[in-house]
Structure formats: structure tokens, C-alpha cells
């Protein structure tokens, strides 16, 4: 116990400030430009892997580490799309995940936002379009913000999330 407390004290607070939103990441302006007003300052996110290589997941997980401190920004991941305000979607959308993604989108209450993460989610990426894969997320559900990168850094993903809830 003493060692645990000593560790906590010696590391101290290391959280970094959040990046500013970046309008260049926005690909669509939703008709109901009210989400920030509706949500106030708390945001719930549901992540969906629609066929990624799992690289993007590693950087999304990193958002929880003390440097990015996602929860400190009042953002958290939730277990059900029914509790979510925003979907974070990775990977090209493969055929075997198409139905699950559409259902998850339908189960998320309005107003909602979708952020596509990674080159695959934004443009199909190297995993691409083929008989088994439908390519970019926007081919399947409406996407508000796209964060390119393979994988994009956690700071970039956070920027994408913050951009999405601005509009």
C-alpha cells in the first residue's frame, strides 16, 4: 500500500491540455447543429471496430492514459450504443460487420455524431475495397469528422472528437 501511494505521489499530475478543434477534419455539417448545447460538457462514446487491423484501437485505448486523460475532459467510453452520443468507428467496413455497424448506428439516440478514425475508416486505406470489404465508413453510415493516419495519434483522435461536438 505504501509503495502504491509513494508511486502516485512521485508521478504527480502529468495530464496535458486538450488540442483545439480542427475544422479541416470535418467532412459534413449536421443539420441539427446543437449537439454541444444538448450534451453540455459530458460526452459518451461508443467505439465500433468495423474491420480494422487493431492498430487504431491501440491509439484509442491510449486516450485513457494519464497524459491524454480523456475522462478529465468529461469524455468517456460507454458499453452500449444506447448510452452513446458519438460513435468512433475504425477500419474499413467489412461485409461481416456491415449489419452490426448499421444496427449500432440505429441504436444510438439522436442527436448523434460519427467520427471515422484512421486511413481505413476515412478512405478505405490499404485494406481497401474488395469483395469482402465496403471501404470507408461513409459508404455505410453518415460521417461527420474523419481523422486520417495509420494509425492517427491519440492527440489527433481527441482533436477529431472535439471537432465533432462543436457542430
Amino acid at each position, binding site marked *: 500500500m505504501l509503495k502504491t501511494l509513494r508511486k502516485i505521489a512521485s508521478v504527480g499530475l502529468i495530464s496535458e491540455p486538450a488540442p483545439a478543434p480542427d475544422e479541416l477534419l470535418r467532412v459534413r455539417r449536421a443539420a441539427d447543429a446543437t449537439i454541444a448545447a444538448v450534451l453540455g460538457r459530458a460526452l459518451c462514446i461508443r467505439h465500433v471496430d468495423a474491420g*480494422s487491423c487493431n492498430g487504431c484501437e491501440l491509439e484509442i485505448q491510449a486516450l485513457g492514459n494519464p497524459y491524454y486523460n480523456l475522462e478529465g475532459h468529461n469524455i468517456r467510453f460507454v458499453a452500449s450504443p444506447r448510452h452513446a452520443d458519438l460513435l468512433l468507428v475504425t477500419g474499413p467496413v467489412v461485409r461481416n460487420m456491415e449489419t452490426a455497424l448499421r444496427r449500432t448506428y440505429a441504436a444510438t439516440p439522436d442527436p448523434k455524431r460519427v467520427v471515422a478514425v484512421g486511413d481505413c475508416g476515412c478512405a478505405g486505406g490499404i485494406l481497401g475495397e474488395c469483395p469482402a470489404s465496403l471501404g470507408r465508413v461513409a459508404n455505410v453510415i453518415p460521417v461527420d469528422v474523419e481523422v486520417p493516419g495509420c494509425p492517427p495519434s491519440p492527440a489527433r483522435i481527441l482533436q477529431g472528437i472535439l471537432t465533432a461536438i462543436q457542430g
Partner: protein
Amino acid sequence: MPLRRWWDRAQPVTGAPHVRGLGVGAEEWLQVARDVAAAGGVLHALWASCAATGERCAHERAVYGAYQTDGGVLVVELTPPDEAPWIYPGIEDIFPAAARMQRSAHDLSGARSSDPDVRPWLNHDRPYEFVRVDGEGVHEIAVGPVHAGTIEPGHFRFSVVGEKVLKLEERLGYTHKGLEQRFTALPILQGHRLAARVSGDSAVAYSWAYCQALEGMSGRTIPPRAAWLRAVCLELERLANHLGDLGALGNDAGFAFGLTQFSRLKEDLLRATAAAFGRRYLFDIVVPGGLASDLSAEAARALADVVRAVCAETVELRDIYDEHEGVRDRFTGTGRLEPERAARLGVVGLVGRASGQARDVRVDLPDAPYTEVPVTMVVQHGGDVASRVAMRFGEAHESGRLLTSLLSGLPHGAHAAEVGVPADGAFGVGLIEGWRGPVLVALQAGPSGSIRRCHPHDPSWQNWPALEHAIMGNIVPDFPLINKSFNLSYSGVDL
């Protein structure tokens, strides 16, 4: 030594050291499998020769098996008789892990094994029939494909009585994206980029295995500096993944402090990696002929400093985990995979070593630089979550030691060499011990720099079925912890 005769007949295969290949007929195909099993060998991979999803193969039908025995890796090629339809003898009774590989090979190429379980695996067009458990008070819990956390999609079907799990049946294939077919659309000198993305958390292992096969086919030996730098990347990848898992395992045992600390250390390591190689995750760093960029002496020193600091803190945290009664209680005895069962199931890699299966490609069949910087293999015998945690602590420590040696002893010279296009039909095999276990890439060249066939093989193929055994008799709420202690790849096996 019945195995001896197969080795004597086999021809050398280029790529990883000690790989030999052999063409066989149906009877011999079975006999090789039996002889390998009798000699205590393991199945590394089984695949078929055509990649066209949903299409039937028009030419050169063949099924391949790759085994590791004490002498090296034996790749067996079974070619069918001319008349169709062709059913080849399945080896799932000898190597249980072959079952899903054979079902996938059928989905991808149409080659059907004799296994009576003909349910499709990667092809999800039809509803799936789960095996039902009947009995008083037995009910089913269905989970997935979309899970509660930030993880990959898959479906788990539990048959339970109260909280206790009688049976788990996995249903994977959700992230199937036609990778093998995608390979055939890329120039062979570009395929390493896709290989790195078969399972992104093992990018270095896959791209190295791919390049190892390719370089062998082109008759190229990479400069010593390139081999050492690749090992630096591979050990960084191992260390980063182990740190991430150690944090997540603490968290799943109700000790959030562990997640906070280990995720911080992992971030420190990723930032140091980015400072050294320009990328947090080393996706396009291992390229045909060597490394995409060199490492300056200062960068190597700075990286070594961070590695040392991270490993020193990991030792402190190990003490804290060991002394925490709540954590110890959750880890010990949970999700046990007995060594005998692990041997029977042919479990490989970290999960295998946690159950006494002392195999590590870096030790058994070392290639440069592991011939000069030898690895001390970590082995545990308990087979429970605690053993898999201890494996990660042990291997993180060993990777730290290797990184220190590698970074301080980097040979001078070029960090890459030119690699030419291999001849049409050339075949090579790469085999690299990634953080999860042995990653195998079987590569065949097509005409004018194209890829005829590439099969990337993840160790998760062999280990997913073992998870179904490890959960038996445990309670449902312990599944996330047990699953995390395996931490297998979905993308890597969904292809």
C-alpha cells in the same frame, strides 16, 4: 526416427533458417502429421493455395501445412489428383487447431477437408449453428460481435449454469477483409506494408516475416546493422504490448492503479519510439532489404535511457502487483490451461510458454541478430492468469535487457540493401517470434514482381481454441480477465 525420412526427402526453402519443403500425396500428408505429432512437434499453419474469396480456384490447387519440430520447420505441400471434386484428409484429430484453419481454407479456396464439421468459418452468409448444451438449468449467454470495450469484434456463446461456464464457443471471422486476395493486387516489393497491417499490434513481426521470406527468395542477405535494428523494433513492440497488457490485466482485476501506471509507461515508450524512428507504432519501418531509416548514435542512447527507466519502474510495479492480495487472489488459479492440455492443443507463443510449452523461435531457430545476442526463454508452468502475467513481467524484463545490448552494440554499416524482384514461382517462408508468438508468412512470387500467393499466419489460430478450455468451470465475470490474459488477435485470424 520416422520423421527422419521426411527431412531427408525435403528440399531447402528460402527465408527463415532451417525451413525445408516437401511435396506429398494424401496418405503421406496424414503420415507426416502423425510423425510430427509423435515427435512432439507443433503445427504452425495450414492454408490452401488460392485466395479468391467466394471463387473457386482455377489452377494449381494445393494445401500446405507448416510444422515445427526440433530440426526446424517442415512445409508440406499436398497436391490433389486431377479429378474434381477433391476432398483431402483433415488432420484435426492429430492437431486440433487445424480444424478452423481447414474450414477457413475451404471458405477461401474451395479445398474441402474430410472433417465432418463443414460449417463455414470466415464466410458469414448463412446463420451459424452453435453446439448446444442441454441439461437442467443450463442457459446460453450470447456476447458480441460488438463488445463493451475498445477491442475487436467477435462473438462468444457461453453455456452456463448459474455463474459457472460449462462451455464457451467462439465465433470469429467478423473482421474478414479478404487480406490474402488483397496481397495479390500489390507488387511484391510493397507487400510488407499490408503484412504490417494483418494484426497492427504485431506490425514489426509481420513485416519482418514477410521481408525475411522475400529476401530469401531474392537471394539477399541483409546488412548486419539492419538485422540488429529490426530486433530493436521487434523488442520495442514486445515491450509496448506487454506493458499495455499488464495495465489492462490489473484493471480487470479491479486495480485501476495498474492501468494508470502501465499505460503511462507504455506512452513513455511510444514517445521514445517516435523520437527514434519517427513513428509511435512501427508500421512501415521494416522494409525489404533492411530498415526504412537509420538510427543515430544519440537517438539510440536516448531510446536506451527510456527503456531502462521504463523497465526499472516495471520492476517496482511487479512488487506492487505481487503484494496486492486482491490482485493475487484474482490472478491465481483463474483460467487454468494445464501443460498437458496445452501440449495436446498445440498452443504456441506466450500463452504456450505460460503452460510449460518451452518454444520460442528466437531461441529454437535463431536468425541474426539473435544468434549473437541470445535470448533467455521465459517459461511458467502454472497455466493460469497469474502465470500469463508472470510471463509478461519476465519477457518485458528480458526485452529490456536485449534492447540495452542491441542498442549499445549496433554494428556499423548500411541499414538497408537493394532487393530485386524474385523469379516467377519462387517460394519463401518467414518465421518471427512476435510478442504473441510465432508469426509465419508464406510467400510465392508471380510474374514480373507480382504476388501469386501470400498467407500470413497469426499464432492466435492455435491459441483461440485453448481459450475455450481455459474458461471452463470458471465464472462468467472472470471471462474478461482470462480473455485479456490470452489477448489474442481477431484481425490476424479473420484475414
